[in-house]
């Protein structure tokens, strides 16, 4: 970089001064330079590595969507939604009962998680004293619960909901309750985050005007936190729609040829039906499984887009 030999070579000076002057110059230049070549190359290499890493993630999403559409293409038609599952006539089989099963199960999940999740979040954020040991325990417990593997919730469902105390049997309601418990921590954590983002000046203003705590929460805090809470609920529901592992344990793998009911009879859901098809050796069922993946991906991308739209639409800074 530096070609100018500098002052030290132009002026005669004793060797020890020359070294000192040269050294001072070098140090100053090193301080002011924007980095030597080696450093810049290293930076560039890292930069491209980072981009490569990111690209891997993005390419795998694109590859998956492309594969599902290509592999499922022969079966992508309206029949997919109207025909019932079958292994005997795979070329005519569809997802009708599984889609209905998913609707029932998810409907139940929404009914359960909205009051329970938002209620718990409101209690922990607005009413609970964070220094109270019980409340700290609840807080830690929720964080832990969010990390419990989904299949363990399946075990809970099998032991407590299908059999045991509740004894609902292998019905859609059992699947619904199991999934609701699974995504409940997600809803609570998301709602708490949304409630926490409401500035305390709003609460103080309301309380100063004589409102009670509940009036403040219900008329000021919750409306302000609504978009955030809604986004959290939508994302939790999206997770519940795609979840299959716990449902394997609470009965949702049967080939149901009749429309399911909530409290009676066998049921199946979209992801567990896809798994049931994919497990079978027949070529047609593999195609059908891929077509099912397309339905599910389209559905979930739609739901996620709504959540992202909501977040951007209502994003505001206080």
């Amino acid at each position, binding site marked *: 970089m530096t070609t100018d030999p500098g002052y030290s070579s132009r002026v005669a000076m004793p060797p020890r001064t020359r070294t000192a002057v040269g050294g001072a110059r070098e140090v100053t230049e090193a301080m002011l330079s924007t980095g030597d070549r080696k450093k810049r190359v290293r930076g560039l290499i890292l*930069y491209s590595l980072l981009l490569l*890493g990111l690209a891997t993630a993005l390419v795998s999403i694109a590859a998956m969507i492309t594969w599902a559409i290509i592999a499922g293409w022969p079966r992508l038609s309206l029949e997919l939604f109207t025909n019932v599952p079958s292994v005997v006539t795979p070329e005519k089989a569809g997802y009708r009962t599984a889609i209905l099963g998913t609707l029932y199960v998810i409907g139940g999940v929404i009914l359960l998680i909205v009051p329970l999740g938002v209620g*718990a979040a409101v209690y922990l954020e607005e009413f609970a004293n964070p220094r109270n040991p019980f409340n700290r325990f609840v807080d830690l417990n929720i964080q832990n619960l969010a990390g419990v593997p989904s299949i363990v919730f399946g075990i809970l469902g099998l032991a407590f909901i299908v059999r045991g105390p509740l004894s609902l049997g292998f019905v859609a309601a059992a699947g619904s309750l199991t999934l609701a418990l699974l995504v409940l921590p997600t809803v609570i954590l998301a709602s708490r985050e949304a409630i926490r983002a409401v500035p305390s000046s709003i609460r103080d203003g309301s309380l100063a005007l004589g409102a009670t705590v509940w009036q403040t929460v219900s008329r000021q805090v919750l409306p302000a936190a609504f978009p955030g809470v809604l986004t959290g609920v939508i994302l939790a529901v999206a997770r519940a729609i795609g979840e299959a592992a716990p449902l394997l*344990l609470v009965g949702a793998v049967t080939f149901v040829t009749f429309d399911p009911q909530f409290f009676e009879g066998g049921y199946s859901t979209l992801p567990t039906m896809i*798994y049931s098809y994919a497990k079978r050796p027949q070529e047609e069922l593999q195609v059908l499984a891929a077509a099912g993946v397309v339905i599910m991906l389209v559905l979930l991308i739609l739901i996620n887009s709504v959540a992202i739209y909501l977040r951007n639409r209502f994003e505001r800074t206080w």
Partner: protein
Amino acid sequence: MSSRVISPGAPSSGPNVRSLEAPGPRVGERIIKVLLWLAALVSVVVTTGIVISLLLPSLNFFQQVSIVEFLTGTIWAPAFAEPAFGVIPIVVGTLMVVFFAMLVAIPVGLASAIYLSEYAPVGVRKTIKPILEVLEGIPTVAIGLFAFSVLTPLIRDLTPFLPWTGPFSIGVAGITVGLLIIPLVSSVSDDAMRSVPMSLREGAYAMGATRFEVALRVVLPAAVSGVIAAFVLGISRAIGETMVVLLVAGAGNPVLSFDPTKGIQTMTAYIGSTATGDISQGTITYDSIFAVGALLFVMTLVMNILAIRLVRRFREVYD
């Protein structure tokens, strides 16, 4: 100090001081508070339920199989005429999945986190974050099926020198789980690095550091506990992953092996495949599901508590 100090929360009881409390008792308010408290209590009930539902059948199980035999035995054959319940083979299967998953998720997840937090312009960040979130939301059944139909043949073609046998592979299952947890690792590390105060970066730049040096020698060490928490959460997620493992590594074959090209059963695959079959309550096979589930629960619990502690320590330093 003088008596002018107003102590918060404890209103003095002099006759002229008016209470700020509401004039009458508000019964509705109380009821609402109790209802909300009950909602918060549900999560505790769920945890208790999980522990009880795992513990009771496990106790049954351990009356017939000793804990030592369970934890140290190297043969897992619950369906045989003479069943053996040594959990080591399926634990090794699970650890294989974790190993290959982290091999993929740590470099890629960390790289994208460093890029997003330190390099990406705002616009790029705003586009890429939602895409990563969508990847996080893709059902594991879909990812498993994709891996089984596309990734396994692809990797097999790329590595013809490996001794491939059969359609299933625990190594590919691990790689797929790795892809699945990239968004998790990336977003948790990204959050950790973004909460490193700007002044640290500015200080480093002022000393003449390059962007690369700032990212790697200043921000990353400062955010290290958050980044490790991201890895721990990733490991916990990989331990519990079920559908991908069932589809890509197969449901059966509980052999003790370290060969990534083989299909090997994991703990979750055992639970998932055994519970789907119609096994009757009270048999030792039925109880073994719960014993394996209990072990799985303990493993992930340790990981999660570790992660929560790491994140908390990190928050305490910079908040």
